[in-house]
């Protein structure tokens, strides 16, 4: 009896670890696919290898964390290492924005050459957020236009009454193996999807060109998100990747993206310095949930989805109380952040 109980807890701990590593790997894929400084594309030498699993880890350069989900990516940036994934033990949703930033080119009057671009980052009120930007440490205060061209959502929707940290008979090792395999597939698809979206072309051009560009891509990761304007929302499309069930909920990935990223003439002329909103809609400290234009109910909605619902990106439908997420260092909630969709939206939506 005692050993059965401890086995259950071991399985529950494994499940938590799998989900935590899933969050980590997803974020790494986002950074690797959108940050020119992190991408593997600049390190083609690492890509030429055969059967990394057959040779020893040390000789093929495979790090222990690479082996998670059998997807070896580039070395993780320190910012991601420091991103408090321990908070993900409550599986709070993670929002990642990919921002197209217009760099002001200051020309040195003497040499007629551009000065290095200067980026200001306001201090983050949320310590668990970061910008990935190689210029982060430079001082300076330059106004610039910014446009969010992609917003990725990674979250674990908890099933009511389930707690992944407690033991569950459903977390058998067979289930865990099946779950792990499905997450491998999900992350493969995520990796491929990143390369099919319009932002990838910009990323690729920035990566390959040695010229100074007027724009750069800056991924931003946080546990909250700022709302888009109605105009912005109307320009965006959504992709839902079929979620994967866990014993206590399901893991979901989706993205809002701009299907056409126009040139700098459409960039906002109002400079937008990075801000992190600790009190977002849905928090008890703010107004009631803001209504969003809803997505049309897709005819292609996967019937395999056990939780058929409207196209809000995240909410815990099983909980009666309004969802809220604490951004304090010690998370106290496991509820999810909620966005309610508005029926009047005509945004296209694709389910993968």
């Amino acid at each position: 009896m005692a050993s059965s109980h401890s086995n259950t807890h071991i399985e529950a701990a494994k499940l938590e670890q799998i989900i935590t590593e899933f969050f980590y790997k997803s974020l790494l894929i986002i950074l690797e696919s959108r940050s020119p400084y992190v991408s593997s594309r600049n390190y083609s030498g690492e890509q030429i290898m055969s059967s990394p699993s057959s040779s020893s880890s040390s000789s093929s350069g495979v790090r222990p964390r690479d082996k998670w989900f059998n997807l070896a990516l580039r070395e993780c940036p320190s910012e991601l290492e420091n991103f408090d994934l321990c908070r993900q033990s409550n599986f709070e949703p993670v929002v990642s924005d990919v921002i197209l930033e217009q760099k002001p080119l200051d020309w040195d009057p003497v040499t007629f050459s551009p000065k290095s671009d200067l980026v200001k980052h306001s201090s983050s009120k949320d310590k668990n957020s970061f910008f990935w930007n190689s210029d982060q440490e430079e001082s300076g205060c330059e106004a610039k236009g910014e446009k969010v061209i992609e917003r990725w959502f990674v979250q674990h929707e908890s099933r009511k009454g389930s707690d992944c940290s407690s033991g569950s008979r459903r977390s058998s090792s067979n289930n865990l193996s099946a779950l792990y395999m499905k997450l491998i597939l999900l992350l493969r698809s995520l990796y491929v999807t990143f390369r099919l979206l319009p932002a990838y072309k910009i990323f690729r051009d920035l990566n390959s060109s040695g010229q100074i560009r007027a724009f750069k891509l800056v991924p931003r990761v946080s546990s909250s998100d700022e709302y888009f304007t109605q105009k912005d929302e109307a320009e965006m499309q959504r992709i839902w990747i079929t979620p994967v069930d866990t014993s206590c909920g399901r893991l979901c990935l989706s993205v809002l993206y701009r299907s056409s990223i126009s040139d700098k003439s459409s960039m906002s002329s109002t400079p937008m310095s990075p801000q992190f909103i600790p009190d977002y809609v849905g928090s008890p400290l703010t107004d009631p949930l803001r209504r969003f234009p809803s997505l049309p109910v897709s005819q292609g909605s996967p019937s395999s989805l056990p939780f058929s619902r409207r196209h809000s990106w995240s909410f815990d439908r099983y909980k009666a109380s309004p969802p809220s997420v604490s951004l304090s260092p010690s998370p106290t909630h496991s509820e999810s952040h909620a966005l309610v969709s508005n029926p009047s939206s005509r945004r296209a939506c694709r389910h993968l």
Partner: protein
Amino acid sequence: MNCEVCQLKELEVEHFEIREVLRCILHTIVFHRALGLVRPKDVDLELFEITYVQCGDVELEKKIDEKIDHFISWVEKHPNKKSQICLSFYEVKSKQPSWFTNKTERLYWEQWYINLNVTQHPKHHSSKSHHTKLVVDPGESATEERSSRRAMVEASLREVLFQIIKFVNEKKDHVPPISEGVIYFPYEITIPSSSDSAFGMDMIKRMLHSGHPTMLS
């Protein structure tokens, strides 16, 4: 075991586009079925603004290229024909040994049908409606037509890639566990053979072996 079948949307391609299109599709599928440890490799197509992903396995790349070469040879002998390439994944099971046979058998658990309609490069006809433009600068409208056609093929190819991702994510339960140390499942690429009937028989044999295929839209 159920054999899941995916019929990919038909693509209309020209001869010189076959190699890139097939590499893109085949590698995308195999990447989703390479569940062993991989370090993905991004490959930019030259003809289209699409980047696809390979497993980074040199042997696999060579085998796929060989099959594509065979297919291109077949196309050259059978121009202007619709064709189908089948990528199948299977498990190897031992058959009951007998006096006559001691064989293993292949149990197919997934089949992907890549449908191509290989067309010849369209000739420029003088009977088109925009006569004036024709007379003034026939080269420009031909270029525009080619660009427009290229954009359509690119959009269709992107649709096929999304179709692959959708199928992979909607159907996961039939995928068998992968063995330790193995990167990708055993696979087989079937191209039309020199006689159409032989190709058809091959397909029928596989269907009988794996059960009635499910047509997916």
